[in-house]
């Protein structure tokens, strides 16, 4: 029994690392640009397809294709911020919500047309390998994904705390005016924030590829998870999003273990509801301004 719990916790932590990459992206965009990116999950999906095609066409390992998916998505993020998001920034929620929502719909349905709904998998030499620690079972692919995810989160944290641009981003997420006082062009800050967030989503996609099938709807699971984690961890807070994501992963995994294989999402929604009931003021960003 004890071992089962430990195993479930480990599984949860490992997948929680991926959730963290997605939620940190969401929280970064929310903090800096002040919008919620409904399409974040679709960028995870795109990251997966990039890795899938690099693996099947050129035999590149998904973990290596990280160096392609991240920069590609960074550029995509900068372009989206520059050509789309920038035009709807302002006090009005409606266009912001529905623009990123439309983007999510568009990417999802375009991929349905381009890639069909079929599941795509990449098999690597480590896909089926695992550590055995006593009775515990730790798959290589998930462990690598977790470690890389934590390293990327750490790198982002260092970036936000040591570079001028990073500090400007943190300032912008506290107070918009401070950033412009620092003499930094807010449009550049926004574009980089959006780019970084998408690069993280792309990384999540590549890291998932060795043990998770790609299909057009795959991002939706991750984005829902991320929204809940971001609210739990207080909006705009990177560390909060990280910790909350790991917690969500564990909660989901325990739910699957003890309630039933189809109950993971139900547990997540339950957590969301409980957050709303008990921590409504922790949702400071609920005001969204």
């Amino acid at each position, binding site marked *: 029994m004890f071992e089962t719990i430990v195993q479930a916790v480990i599984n949860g932590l490992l997948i929680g690392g991926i959730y963290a990459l997605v939620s940190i992206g969401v929280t970064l965009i929310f903090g800096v640009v002040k*919008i*919620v990116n*409904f399409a974040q999950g679709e960028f995870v999906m795109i990251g997966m397809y990039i890795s899938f095609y690099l693996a099947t066409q050129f035999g590149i390992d998904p973990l290596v294709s990280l160096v392609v998916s991240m920069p590609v998505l960074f550029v995509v993020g900068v372009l989206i911020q520059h050509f*789309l998001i920038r*035009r*709807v920034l302002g006090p*009005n*929620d*409606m*266009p*912001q*919500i*529905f*623009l990123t*929502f*439309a*983007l999510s*719909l*568009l990417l*999802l*349905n*375009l*991929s*349905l*047309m381009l890639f*069909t*709904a079929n599941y795509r998998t990449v098999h690597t030499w480590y896909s089926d390998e695992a550590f055995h620690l006593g009775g515990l079972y730790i798959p290589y692919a998930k462990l690598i994904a977790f470690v890389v995810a934590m390293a990327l989160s750490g790198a982002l944290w260092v970036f936000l705390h040591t570079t001028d641009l990073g500090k400007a981003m943190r300032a912008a997420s506290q107070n918009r005016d401070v950033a412009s006082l620092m003499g930094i062009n807010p449009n550049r800050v926004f574009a980089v924030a959006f780019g970084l967030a998408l690069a993280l989503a792309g990384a999540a996609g590549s890291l998932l590829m060795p043990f998770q099938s790609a299909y*057009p709807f795959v991002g939706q699971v991750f984005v*829902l998870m991320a*929204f*809940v984690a971001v*609210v739990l961890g207080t*909006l705009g807070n990177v560390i909060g999003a990280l910790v909350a994501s790991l917690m969500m992963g564990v909660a989901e995994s325990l739910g699957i273990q003890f309630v*039933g294989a*189809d*109950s993971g*999402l*139900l547990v997540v*929604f*339950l957590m*969301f*509801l409980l957050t*709303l*009931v008990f921590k*409504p003021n922790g*949702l400071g*960003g*609920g*005001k*969204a*301004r």
Partner: protein
Amino acid sequence: MKNLNMRTTLGLAIGTAVLIALPLVVKSSFAIDIFIRILLFAFIGVAWNLMGGYAKQLSLGHAAYFGLGAYTSTILQVNHGISPWIGMVAGGGVAMLASLPIGWLCFRLRGPYFTIATIAAAQALMLIFLKFRDLAWGAEGTTIPNLGNAPLMMQFEAKAGYYYVALGLLALGLAITYRIEKSWMGYYLVAIGEDEDAAEAVGVNAPRIKRDVYLISAFLTALAGTLYTQYIYFIDPATAFNFNISIEAALVSIVGGIGTLWGPVIGTILLETTSALLQSWLGGTIGGIQLTVYSLILMAVILWRPTGLMGYFSEIYARRRVKPAKA
């Protein structure tokens, strides 16, 4: 003023006559099917627009009430033999009851997080109907016994029957919206949508108004759920709580003109016609094409015409009115 009212009344009378005569003239089952979809989704859009359009509470979870309406009437009919006409109203009641706790939770959030909370609520309801098989047939769903032509059980041999029910619902939704729009409540809703603090400062009880309009919106959406299920003779959680219903409810209003009486109707006509044309051009269905086009239309509207088609029309109308005055 009088003159304008006369013209409006005349227009409405002619429009109604045409809509009533339509199924008598058009016999194509494909066409009638499209008309029914337009009426039904326009009605759902009208229900959404009351809350999402006027008060700007941007829900993407109205499938929750559509599904509850559909399931209530179906359970009453299949398990207890009760007519869906009664089940329809009962479903509306169930939806209203459900909207109270869901609203209590979701209205704690503003902006995008309100929207996310509504999505989560609808998804959670779908999961409940999937998981708890004792509640209602689980994931397999059930078919509705075909009774042939039984108007009292909301079943019609000719599609025209469903057409008239949908038309009646849309008329009801528009009448309710019109009444609200012209009353103090309409002003209060728009005020809440514009600035909730300022609204409170002039005596608007924002939480109560939002709760009340959510009740009405949920009730109406549930009615559509019953009709839809009767029309397709089948129910399962994936159809009844389909996220696409939540999307379309919001989409038709935004494209047509958010917070306007006719916006959802115009938006639905545009979107559903486009979708029907796509289907006939491409023959059969290519997965994803419909929503790809919808999302492009939505993006175009948001970027270039945030007030929707209604806003565009009224601009043109205003320009035409101003010109002669200058001359």
